[in-house]
């Protein structure tokens, strides 16, 4: 608890300081104290503390002075003061206590404050005569230093990495490799924030007035209403905040490092400075690191620099003073992704010290951004506030003119203001979205960003990855072609023309299988019960499985021919090449990949054990076989091998044959495509396969909905004119031979054509595209951590069918919010109209302040929330997606709202009129008006359930609404019955005739509104 004590002590010390007179602006009327001088922010990790120092921000010299003074103190290892954020980070040993450090800082700051000039001189003098090396770590210039120097400085080496003790040391010293997470708002602060809004201020004013004029009960009730509102708001908002922040539970990726001479996979949180990172295509860079080895290494740095094209990295030392971040080609940064090649790097910064961490601190606390819908509703809400304030002023004036008391009119008009303003508008949106997240969770759809739900409702195009999304990613070899003979593979048996074939009896086949095993990165483990466990990409696993099924001892083969080097596939070269040792003077080169490219490398082929040259006719025949297999939707690979004798490398290889693998389409995907098409969503398939394969699958899934299937085959999309690209992407249903780098371009082209795009992805390279798409979808089980982290929607059970549920929910949520808002606005407007009319015409006050407040509680909240929880309408998936440009309520909707509220007001006025006719202007008449307005508003909620007449569609039952309406009606009746409540609300008992009139005035608007609904031209629900 030392931290707490220090904080207290600090507060004491701070309060002794004279505040410098600055007061922070706050958008809510804040009554906080002036900020303390030194404020502790973080001290969770041993030996590491962060303070916020008032006045440090934007100060020129104070940071340097602090660093200078503190770093010369014994026991302090590292100081960094930032004038951007006003924070100072100190790393210290166990000798010092937090209290000592805090007092040190205070002293130094005061020193500086009182005599800045002297402090500066001191610093300058010292630096001139300085001979001992500064303790400040030169964070900025790793890229300018030689790798050897860095390695020695950090006491690590390329081969062995850090020793385990060193790892522990560094972990202690620098802390875990985590970025600070923002804390959610505490419940108390949500509650208190509620009291800071304008309506509450008005109500407090009204309560104050009541107190002044002697209406204590009134004041109590008003404050009671406010409190109840606050409680309700707190309940819903805190639930929402909790859900929103649970979205942030980041999946922590793992990283490969060299430690104690071993390559191990560790959680990226445990990375420390000095660790050697092994970078492979598809790995997420866990911390800032300086490259010590880079081979065709390309990194996607879009998270940091915004540059979507991957950058080629090198291990060379750079020169030059001001090298901007984007050009530091020998550094890799946390948060970036390796897209190709391989490399080794030594970690130079972790956690908050990384560039990513610094940016985060720059930005400050992360607030949950408002979704577009929330913004719209906010705007609508503030417009309404203005409107109702205007109207209330008018009512006040009119009432005064009619001769009512000032205080009474003041109270009434203020209450009207409160009742009329739908202050719950943005809350409805947030709550509904948050609750929607919960609902989707039950369907195993994990939504990670709020505006993804909004976007889901308006998705127009969905881009689907073929491998892994449309197909089960369970490749298996089904056909081989070697020596122009087709060999089928079924259930582990090789069949040539129906006859079983022993691979050991056919030399070409055996060599083909061997090359498939050797030129392969999958890891094979032998389980104790004889089973093999294979880990790697689906394609390579399939090859190994085939070999195992053929009875070949995979592990033995790999041991016999150990691998020397490996050249991965890259965009330019669509094949993989490995070199193995045969014996001392001979090496074996194994190549597998795109058949056309591999064939180009070959000069001979193997026939009956002999090498014969490849003629043009032979090449044609092989191409024809390739085509035939691809036409069956198989993924086809070509294999070849060669020898290197004594360092002499023969340029050309010997062709072995073709391997065809089938990746079956996932069950139910075809129907899913149909559902998407019915919902008006276009489906686009993206694959790296050749055109015929893509065509076969596209046809099977009926992607083109019966029209000609259009395929774009390209791996140089950059050459296309952007306009052409835009036009094409709009029409094309399949993209073939696409490398993942182009996915982002495709998404952007579609977006430029005005579409809302959803994109699926599972690989690291898909991350930029997933981020750019309005809805990025990742699979929960298969697929990489990086994709899941970046995606907006994660399908936890990997079932693509849940997407259609997500779309349906997304549309429903949006529709429900519209319904709720429609209801809130129309009821509030009706209240305004009633008061205005009555006062204008001089018919007294149909509703007093208390009744208005009661209206607020009873009619606004519960049915409004219940409407927001409507189940999906049956036809929600049979209509095209809404256009994203559409505002949540357009002018037609507003007209409808006005007409509906007019109907409500007129009927209540009619009931009031009846009351006046019978009883004169009296509380009795008011009660009638009150009851009729409330009941008609409650029944109006039923009408708001759909824009179509209720008799024409079958809506599933909404239990919440039934409960809400039932409860509200009951409450209403109770207030008639219980004398205490009656007196409070100034409601008189009513007789049967009154009841009939009230009933009529409630039913008639409902019927009228329903009837007029059918006259409207059909619009999207």
């Amino acid at each position: 608890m030392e931290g707490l004590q220090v904080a207290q002590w600090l507060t004491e010390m701070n309060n002794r300081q004279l505040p410098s007179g600055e007061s922070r602006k706050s958008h809510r009327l804040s009554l906080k104290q002036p900020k303390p001088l030194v404020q502790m922010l973080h001290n969770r990790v041993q030996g590491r503390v962060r303070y916020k120092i008032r006045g440090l921000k934007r100060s020129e010299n104070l940071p340097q002075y602090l660093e200078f003074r503190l770093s010369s103190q014994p026991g302090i290892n590292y100081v960094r003061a930032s004038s951007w954020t006003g924070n100072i980070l100190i790393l210290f040993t166990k000798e010092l206590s937090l209290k000592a450090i805090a007092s040190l800082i205070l002293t130094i700051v005061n020193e500086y404050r009182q005599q800045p000039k002297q402090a500066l001189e001191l610093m300058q003098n010292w630096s001139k005569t300085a001979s001992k090396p500064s303790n400040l770590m030169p964070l900025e210039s790793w890229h300018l230093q030689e790798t050897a120097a860095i390695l020695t400085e950090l006491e690590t080496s390329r081969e062995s990495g850090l020793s385990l003790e060193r790892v522990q040391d560094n972990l202690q010293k620098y802390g875990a490799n985590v970025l600070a997470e923002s804390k959610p708002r505490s419940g108390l602060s949500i509650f208190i924030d509620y009291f800071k809004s304008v309506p509450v201020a008005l109500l407090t004013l009204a309560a104050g007035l009541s107190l002044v004029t002697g209406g204590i009960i009134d004041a109590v009730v008003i404050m009671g209403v406010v409190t109840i509102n606050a409680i309700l708001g707190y309940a819903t908002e805190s639930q929402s905040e909790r859900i929103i922040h649970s979205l942030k539970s980041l999946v922590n990726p793992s990283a490969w490092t060299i430690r104690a001479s071993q390559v191990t996979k560790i959680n990226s949180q445990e990375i420390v400075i000095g660790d050697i990172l092994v970078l492979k295509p598809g790995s997420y860079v866990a911390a800032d690191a300086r490259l010590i080895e880079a081979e065709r290494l390309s990194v996607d740095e879009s998270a940091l620099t915004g540059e979507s094209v991957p950058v080629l990295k090198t291990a060379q030392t750079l020169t030059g003073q001001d090298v901007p971040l984007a050009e530091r080609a020998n550094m890799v940064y946390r948060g970036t992704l390796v897209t190709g090649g391989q490399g080794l790097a030594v970690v130079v910064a972790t956690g908050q010290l990384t560039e990513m961490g610094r940016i985060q601190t720059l930005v400050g606390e992360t607030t949950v951004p408002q979704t577009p819908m929330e913004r719209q509703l906010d705007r609508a809400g503030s417009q309404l506030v203005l409107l109702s304030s205007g109207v209330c002023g008018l009512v006040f004036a009119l009432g005064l003119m009619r001769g009512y008391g000032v205080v009474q009119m003041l109270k009434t008009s203020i209450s009207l203001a409160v009742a009329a303003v739908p202050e719950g508008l943005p809350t409805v949106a947030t709550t509904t979205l948050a609750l929607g997240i919960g609902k989707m969770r039950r369907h195993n759809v994990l939504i990670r960003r709020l505006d993804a739900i909004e976007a889901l409702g308006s998705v127009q195009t969905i881009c689907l990855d073929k491998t892994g999304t449309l197909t089960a990613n369970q490749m298996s070899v089904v056909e081989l072609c070697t020596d122009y003979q087709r060999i089928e593979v079924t259930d582990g048996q090789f069949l040539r023309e129906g006859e079983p074939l022993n691979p050991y009896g056919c030399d070409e086949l055996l060599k083909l299988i061997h090359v498939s095993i050797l030129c392969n990165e999958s890891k094979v483990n032998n389980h104790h019960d004889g089973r093999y466990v294979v880990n790697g990409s689906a394609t390579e696993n399939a090859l190994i499985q085939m070999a195992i099924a053929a009875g070949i001892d995979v592990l033995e083969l790999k041991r016999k021919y150990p691998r020397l080097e490996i050249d991965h596939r890259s965009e330019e070269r669509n094949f993989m090449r490995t070199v193995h040792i045969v014996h001392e003077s001979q090496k074996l080169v194994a190549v597998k990949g795109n058949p056309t490219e591999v064939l180009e490398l070959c000069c001979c082929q193997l026939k009956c054990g002999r090498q014969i040259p490849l003629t043009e006719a032979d090449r044609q025949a092989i191409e024809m076989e390739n085509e035939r297999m691809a036409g069956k939707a198989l993924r086809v690979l070509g294999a070849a091998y060669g020898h290197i004798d004594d360092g002499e490398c023969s340029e050309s290889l010997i062709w072995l044959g073709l391997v065809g693998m089938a990746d079956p389409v996932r069950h139910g995907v075809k129907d899913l495509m149909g559902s998407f098409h019915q919902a008006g969503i276009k489906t686009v398939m993206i694959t790296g396969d050749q055109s015929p394969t893509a065509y076969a699958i596209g046809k099977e899934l009926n992607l083109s909905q019966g029209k000609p299937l259009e395929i774009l085959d390209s791996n140089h999309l950059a050459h296309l004119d952007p306009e052409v690209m835009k036009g094409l992407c709009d029409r094309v249903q399949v993209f073939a031979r696409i490398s993942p780098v182009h996915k982002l371009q495709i998404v952007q082209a579609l977006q430029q054509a005005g579409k809302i795009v959803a994109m699926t992805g599972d690989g690291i390279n898909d991350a930029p595209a997933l981020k750019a798409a309005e809805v990025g979808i990742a699979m929960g089980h298969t697929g990489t951590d990086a994709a899941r982290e970046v995606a907006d929607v994660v399908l936890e059970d990997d079932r693509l069918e849940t997407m259609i549920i997500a779309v349906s929910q997304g549309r429903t949520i949006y529709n429900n919010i519209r319904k709720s808002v429609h209801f809130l606005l129309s009821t509030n407007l009706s209240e305004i109209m009633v008061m205005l009319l009555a006062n204008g015409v001089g018919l007294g006050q149909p509703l007093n302040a208390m009744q208005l407040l009661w209206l607020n509680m009873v009619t606004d909240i519960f049915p409004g929330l219940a409407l927001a929880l409507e189940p999906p309408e049956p036809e929600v998936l049979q209509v095209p997606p809404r256009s994203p440009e559409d505002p949540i309520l357009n002018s037609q909707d507003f007209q409808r709202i006005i007409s509906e509220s007019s109907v409500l007001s007129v009927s209540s006025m009619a009931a009031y009129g009846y009351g006046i006719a019978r009883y004169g202007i009296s509380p009795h008449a008011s009660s009638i008006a009150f009851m009729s307005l409330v009941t008609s508003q409650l029944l109006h909620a039923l009408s708001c359930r759909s824009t179509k007449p209720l008799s024409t569609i079958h809506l599933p039952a909404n239990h919440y609404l039934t409960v809400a309406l039932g409860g509200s009606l009951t409450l209403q009746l109770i207030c008639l019955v219980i004398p205490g409540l009656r007196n409070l609300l100034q409601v008189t008992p009513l007789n049967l005739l009154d009841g009939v009139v009230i009933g009529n005035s409630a039913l008639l608007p409902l019927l009228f509104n329903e009837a007029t609904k059918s006259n409207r031209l059909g619009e999207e629900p």
Partner: protein
Amino acid sequence: MKRDFMFTSESVTEGHPDKLCDRISDAIVDHFLRHDPFTRVVTECAVATAIVFIAARFESDALIDFTKIARQVIKQVGYEQPSFSAKTCSIVTSLKELPQGEYRHFDEQKLSDTEIEKIAVKNQATVFGFACNQTPAFMPLPIWLAHQLARRLTEVRVQNILPYLTPDGKTQVGVEYCDRQPCRIHSITIIASQYPLDPVASPDLKQLQEDIRATVIDPVFETEIIKPDLDTRIFINPDGPFIIGGPAAHSGVTGRKNAIDTYGEYSRHSGAALSGKDPTRIDRVGAYAARYAAKNVVAADLAEECEVQLSYSIGLARPVSIQVETFGTGKIADEEIKVLLEKHFDFRLAGIIKQFNLRFLPALIKGGFYKQLATYGHVGRTDLGLVPWEETDKITLLKAIK
């Protein structure tokens, strides 16, 4: 009828975008027929900067890789510039499979005469065939010369005689006729595209013009009877150097060079494109049959110039009308020639396919059959070896009557 006039015809090299598209379309037809001789296919192709668009409607047992074929053709033609090359161009394919029809698997070779009579044409077409004795190939001289020049223009590029040329090129030859016989060469125009100007690798216009004259024009006319004289106007790139050319400079579509495919506008020709269609399209094979008839008429000395017109209507196997026009050079009346044609030549769709063996030729001939027809003319080809409609095997039959 005119007796003295000047007539020009043009031809283009295989790198010209329109012809490139014709070639790609026909390569696809070849490929289909090789795998499944009973394919029905219609394919169109369009090229523009960095993009190739292929639309195909087909009914076939084979599934072929359209994009690979297109890239192979582009590579073979020689496009390797950064602005347009086989590797970097994007290909959009729009494919539609047609429902299976009734007559798809009928092998015409095995049909009897009555069965052939039953197979009706599915398109309307009026096709023309022409032959004249201005050249040994029985083609009009202007188009013949234009083709030779275009072919030579490609040759000098491929054989590295002028390595700085790029695949796109156009030739035009104007011939003066005296008394309906060619008497002199009036003008020659050649548009040749080259790599960007470079003092070493790609010479300036003057040098280009000299080179073309020396390596293209002179060798072609060495073996010709009528050679250019001093008054012949020769234009080589009159608009200035033509850099790169190809789809990056001007786009192309299948079927826009009909005249070049046939007779250089010297004779009438059908508006329908010839490339990209399978043998069951009468608008393609009818033109071949008409040429066969006209050539045999002229080769049998029945006329000096002969134009045969065939008109087909949907639903009938035989042509609705056959007309013969000999421009006054016929030794016997046009009507009688027409009667002879009707008697000895089979103009029914299935009959044409059978006699020319159109379905199986692509499998027999190396390098594709229709693909090679796509450039330098579908008719009047003496360089391809066996082209069925260029055979003059009906001469004896026709001569016997005379």
